[in-house]
């Protein structure tokens, strides 16, 4: 009996040893992802693991809101996931914080299929002569319209900000419904910039002498605040938008799905989710949505060229496996099978996309009416800090906490301070 027990012990020890050796041969890396397509990404990672049996990838998820700060904190103490999904505009900050590895160094582990030049918005990943992230997906915002509400109100599709306001008033008067509603808290940043850009202003611009200056006057800023405040003051949009952060907030999405709202501005992936939700709730029914380019002002409509970047943590112990994962995530099949709500940030893949007719506004916007954040990033102020002070200042103006002039003056003072620093 004793001998049998000893044999069993020896066998189990040997087995455990073998398993330990096999586990040791396995490379474990972590990928942190912020979008909602978690199940799809897990399926994609399963495919990656099947093709690379020596690499196991743990999928971590975090909200966009916490993503940047969490990674910066972890990175500063030598921790954090191996591959991280960030916004285009954070890449330079991550490089400055020495939190990520340069692409030039990572490409030693394997070249990209169409070379790094095939990626768009690479200027946003550049810092001190190197590139610090791989542009992953590209997006921008465009206008979305609910065609049946427009018909009900007898309103033509607006093309300018003024027409949008007039159409919203008509819709309210004739149907009692909301015309244009927007997230008036954190992400008011986007429509505000589109409004300013299409009226020839911007928060920061190049001064022509190699420096940077404020590119908007107090009057222009107060006018922009006044424009968006009109929707709230006249009851054209519900006051609750003051506490809405995101364009995909359930209150905004539900109003569009129910046909209680005619216009919205949103990014590509939100629109695709909206279309999917409508089709799921109304199978076989024609889709009453269309997209158009953003509203114009005195000049042509413009939106930002945004998107997501993949970066490799400078603390990673497995840079080769991490880069292999980045290459897989940037490959064409990923966008065709798994990450389908996003457009790839690669010229070759973008040219191959077949848009639905409802998405043609986004296609046109992306192709002809986008710009990068330009001087906002190049001036050293950074998009993130500028975004924060702007959304707070607009919040104080739109809610009535401050007068338009006071809020505009305060914001300009903040931007001036940031430029000085």
């Amino acid at each position, binding site marked *: 009996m004793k001998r049998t027990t000893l044999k069993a012990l020896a066998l189990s020890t040997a087995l455990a040893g073998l398993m330990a050796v096999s586990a040791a041969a396995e490379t474990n890396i972590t990928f942190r992802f912020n979008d909602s397509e978690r199940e799809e990404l897990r399926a994609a990672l399963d495919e990656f693991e099947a093709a690379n049996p020596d690499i196991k990838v743990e999928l971590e998820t975090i909200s966009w809101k916490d993503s940047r*700060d969490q990674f*910066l*904190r972890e990175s*500063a*103490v030598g921790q954090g996931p191996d591959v991280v999904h960030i916004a285009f505009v954070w890449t330079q*900050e991550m490089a*400055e*914080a*020495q939190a990520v590895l340069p692409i030039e160094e990572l490409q030693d582990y394997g070249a990209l299929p169409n070379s790094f030049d095939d990626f768009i918005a690479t200027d946003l990943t550049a810092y001190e002569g190197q590139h610090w992230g791989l542009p992953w997906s590209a997006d921008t915002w465009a206008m979305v319209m609910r065609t049946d509400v427009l018909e009900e109100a007898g309103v033509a599709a607006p093309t300018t900000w003024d027409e949008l306001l007039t159409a919203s008033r008509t819709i309210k008067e004739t149907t009692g419904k909301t015309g244009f509603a927007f997230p*008036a*808290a*954190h992400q008011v940043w986007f429509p505000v910039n589109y409004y300013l850009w299409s009226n020839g202003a911007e928060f920061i611009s190049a001064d022509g002498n190699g420096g940077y200056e404020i590119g908007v006057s107090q009057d222009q800023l107060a006018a922009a605040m006044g424009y968006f405040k009109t929707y709230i003051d006249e009851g054209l949009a*519900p*006051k*609750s*938008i*003051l*506490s809405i*952060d995101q364009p995909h907030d359930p*209150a905004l999405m*539900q*109003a569009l799905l129910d046909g209680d709202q005619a216009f919205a501005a949103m990014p590509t992936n939100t629109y695709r989710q909206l279309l999917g939700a409508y089709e799921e709730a109304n199978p076989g029914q024609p889709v009453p949505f269309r997209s158009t380019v953003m509203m114009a002002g005195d000049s042509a409509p413009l939106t930002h060229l945004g998107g997501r970047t993949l970066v490799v943590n400078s603390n990673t112990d497995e840079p080769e496996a991490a880069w292999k994962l980045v290459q897989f995530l940037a490959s064409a099949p990923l966008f065709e099978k798994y990450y389908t709500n996003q457009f790839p940030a690669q010229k070759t893949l973008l040219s191959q996309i077949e848009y639905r007719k409802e998405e043609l506004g986004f296609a046109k916007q992306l192709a002809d009416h986008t710009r990068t954040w330009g001087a906002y990033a190049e001036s050293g102020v950074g998009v*993130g*800090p500028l975004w*924060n*002070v702007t959304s*707070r*200042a*607009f*919040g*104080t*103006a*739109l*809610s*009535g*906490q*401050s007068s338009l002039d006071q*809020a505009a003056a*305060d914001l300009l003072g903040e931007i001036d301070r940031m430029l000085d620093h």
Partner: protein
Amino acid sequence: MKLSPLMRDRLTVFAMLFPTFLVLVGFYLYPTLYNLELSFTDITLLKLRQGGEWVGLANYWEFLTSSSSFHIAFNTIFWLTAVSVTIRMILGLGFALLLNSNVLRNMKMTTIARLILLVPWATPPVVAVIAWRWLFEPTNGPLNRWLLNFGLIDDPIAFTADLATVWPSIVTIVVWNTTPLIGVSLLASLQTVPGELYEAGEIDGANRFQMFRFVTLPYLMPTISVLTLMSVIWTFNNFVYVWLTTGAGPGTYTNVLATEVYLKAFVDLRIGYSAAIGVTMAIVMGVFGALYFRFFGLSDMQDKVG
């Protein structure tokens, strides 16, 4: 060397306290001193590896002279702390008196009433805020539906976005979630009041209010005093309720010191400046605590109770 019994006792006490002392140094004193050091630098979240540069009192000066400081201090001291602590102390006392009364006892409702009172306290603050945000929701929230159905309002109220309602909404959540602790603590104190005192009061012809004023309240004062101090410190430093309910908005209308610390550190990335606000908060609370004990000293109160 032979140690005297007194010395042996002292060494034993020291040896037993030493681990706790180490924990306090590691988890309280060191972070406090480190935070103090950071507050004199311009360190940002992007410069954590490189470290910040010494800027002396610049962060403190900037915060104290900032145009938004008064607004933030007013929100913290008046709305978040004074209003919510006052309401919760009054309500807590009311609940304690009700739970200790014969009314509930005669209806055999004492146990169930005490359990019901504990439900909000057992609800984590995050869950409480989410539940209340849903109740306050303008389009589908039950509160707006009830008010509309009863004809009390014509249009839904954006409770957490309207300047007129946002602070009362936050205070409602804080009071709902925290009053039970006050109620239960005061109930425990109420049960220690000797019955003979009430009998003596009755013989002297005291009415109900006089009984409460001259018998019950003096007995409760030490507990009320400690609960008030704890509530003030805890609420003054609280971040969760405001941040989860409004994110310090609309605009910066509900910004308080704790949310300003977060905004400056993790939104604007200015760790040094944020640390200076944290140190200022600690100083304010330290001074408040010292003054509070000076004017409402517990030992005096216990003397008064006898």
